[in-house]
């Protein structure tokens, strides 16, 4: 059994190389890559200057022509000067040293970007994922137990609707209806926290005490050169403790950071409602139906009849004997939790403008920021490969019949 898992781990290496080599090669050959985009930007810039300045430059520059020398320099900047297989080996070598390169658009190391955005996506995704399990398992069980009843039929209609609407589409629709554009204004229009809280907002009651930066003692003030004189600071600011108590006042307006703990929690939750709803919606139908069918199938098994023949109550038979077996396919899905969350985050984060892993990936694709795209591919495929093994491990733990060799 251990040798099986060791073999699985070793198999990850060629799989990983296969995935990344394929994607890397594609990035080298599709049109519209970073070099072409840089040329386009250059040409646009030239066109603008020639219009505005009435330029006297030579004809080649006027037409936005780029010299061969410049082209070579551009290619060198983006690493397109070498044959793709050499470039791939260089890239792989750096990845093995945990260096994913530097983003073309952010000019920051890709690792730092991913490390910064990853937790945001995980909080949203994990909440949605957990919630979907908490809803779908009881619902599926209940539908199986009450198979054919009005409740079962009614909830099946819901399942069909949820199945036919992708989570992010529902997100767009709900944002239109509830986000203050068309109908109601009860949810924020995006983001993960409020930028500015006005006096009218209900959240303003959670604002803390604050003070003006000008009231700080001079020696403290000098430690924070960025503070402007009339800038508010709240109790969360490290310098606030030094403000004399008579200068403190209750904030009327402020940002997310100026709220107390309860306020920040509520603000975050308020921003999470719709995105998390979309995550749940995306997984709702298939998971509910899987749970129901799995339990229905097990309820028809001979061992369930044996359990009834023992004199056990219906509750014990369903929840102990049948449910334990029918949870096996659901529980093994947990191994793929992270990759499912990340896959779902691309469009949902775009719709709700959540600055997370998915949005980073989406924008890197649009901007042809290949270091980021490939960095996200590395993380995504690693999670997927580990998820496969995790699923197998979970299978071994919950199903005694499964022994890999």
């Amino acid at each position, binding site marked *: 059994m251990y040798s099986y898992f060791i073999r699985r781990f070793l198999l990850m290496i060629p799989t990983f190389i296969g995935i990344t080599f394929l994607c890397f090669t594609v990035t080298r050959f599709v049109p519209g890559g970073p070099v072409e985009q840089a040329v386009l930007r250059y040409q646009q810039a030239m066109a603008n200057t020639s219009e505005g300045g009435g330029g006297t430059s030579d004809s080649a520059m006027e037409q936005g022509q780029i010299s061969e020398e410049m082209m070579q320099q551009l290619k060198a900047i983006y690493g397109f000067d070498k044959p793709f297989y050499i470039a791939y080996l260089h890239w792989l070598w750096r990845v093995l040293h945990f260096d994913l390169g530097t983003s073309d658009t952010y000019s920051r190391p890709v690792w730092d970007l991913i490390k910064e955005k990853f937790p945001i996506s995980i909080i949203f995704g994990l909440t949605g994922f957990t919630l979907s399990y908490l809803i779908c398992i009881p619902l599926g069980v209940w539908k199986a137990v009450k198979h054919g009843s009005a409740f079962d039929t009614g909830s099946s209609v819901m399942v069909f609707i949820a199945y036919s609407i992708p989570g992010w589409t529902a997100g767009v629709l709900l944002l239109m209806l509830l986000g203050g554009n068309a109908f109601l204004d009860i949810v924020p229009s995006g983001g993960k926290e409020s930028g500015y809280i006005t006096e009218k907002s209900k959240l303003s009651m959670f604002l803390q005490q604050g003070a003006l930066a000008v009231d700080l003692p001079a020696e403290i003030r000098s430690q924070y050169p960025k503070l402007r004189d009339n800038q508010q600071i709240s109790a969360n600011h490290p310098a606030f403790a030094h403000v004399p108590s008579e200068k403190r006042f209750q904030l009327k307006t402020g940002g997310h950071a100026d709220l107390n703990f309860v306020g920040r929690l509520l603000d975050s939750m308020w921003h999470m409602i719709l995105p998390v709803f979309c995550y749940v919606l995306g997984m709702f139908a298939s998971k509910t139906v899987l749970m129901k069918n799995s339990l229905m199938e097990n309820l028809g*098994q*001979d*061992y369930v*009849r*044996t*359990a*009834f*023949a*023992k*004199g*056990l*109550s219906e509750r014990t038979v369903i929840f102990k*004997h049948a449910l*334990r*077996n029918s949870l*096996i396919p659901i529980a093994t899905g947990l191994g793929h939790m992270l990759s499912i969350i990340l896959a779902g985050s691309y469009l949902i984060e775009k719709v709700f403008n959540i600055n997370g892993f998915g949005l980073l990936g989406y924008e890197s694709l649009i901007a042809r920021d290949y270091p980021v795209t490939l960095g996200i591919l590395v993380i995504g495929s690693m999670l997927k490969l580990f998820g496969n093994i995790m699923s197998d491990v979970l299978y071994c733990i*919950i*199903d*005694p*019949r499964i022994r890999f060799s």
Partner: protein
Amino acid sequence: MANELLKVKNLKTYFKTEAGIAKAVDGVDFDILPGEVLGIVGESGSGKSVTSLSIMQLIPNPPGEIVEGNIIFEGTDLLEAYRRKDYDVIRKIRGNKISMIFQEPMTSLNPVFTIGDQVAESLVHHKGMTPKEARDYAVKMLELVGIPSARERIDEYPHQFSGGMRQRVMIAMALSCDPSLLIADEPTTALDVTIQAQILELMLEVKAKTSNAAILLITHDMAVIAETCHRVVVMYCGRIQEIADVKTIFHSPQHPYTQGLLASLPKPGQKVRRLSTIEGMVPSLFNLPKGCSFCTRCSKKHEPCENVPPEMVETAPGHFVRCHLAKPMQSV
């Protein structure tokens, strides 16, 4: 007889399907005495399994439903409670006073619980034992049914046991609460021929060692009946055709169907080229003949058979036959 253990009176279990109502069991009467082994024999679809499942109230509903009858077990009418929807009555009896062994040992045990858990479960449930006591008792039961090194194997899962071993576990499970009736629904059909005799012997042996439970043995195998039973019920198309003790059935069967069944058995020492068969097919349950249900295949069919359903006739003490040809015994 007043001291019967189980009395089945006019039991009717119907299945409602799209094609119509299938009268799987249509008016069955018999009783079981304490400690006796009663066999029910019949072809597939004769209603023998449905009868046993009706006693346990394990008929899947829908589509099946017990529509009429009484099942009196140790003085309690189980079906009367069933009609009152008082399912606690049968729940206290199932697995405790009446237990059951099924045909498919391969799938009748829950794959994700250990053998020990499954044997101990009914002990904890019915006898109020602590899990520790139940476990020790389960080891004892498994030793009794001949599972080698039971103390170690108790923590294994069903898939680690062979079919015969699993059926032994089922027997241990069924007899652990000292039931007074054990229903065995074709317990050896799915097993290897070499194991079948072992399992039957084991059932009788363990029964003798424990509470001497009565056994209701369902089978289509006349040899099994001859080997194990005291009395025999012959069923055909949801009705009992003949009841008698095992000797009478084998030596002087009255019903043409029973005669046909016996004629189709190979006889030792007798050289025949082909075994005789009963001509024809079992009629569809949706389209039974108006008269005797066996009339479509009967070699002794005569005038009233097709139109008048025969009544049960007692031809000798304890020997009942449902046939127009049977002559009631002379009342003294």
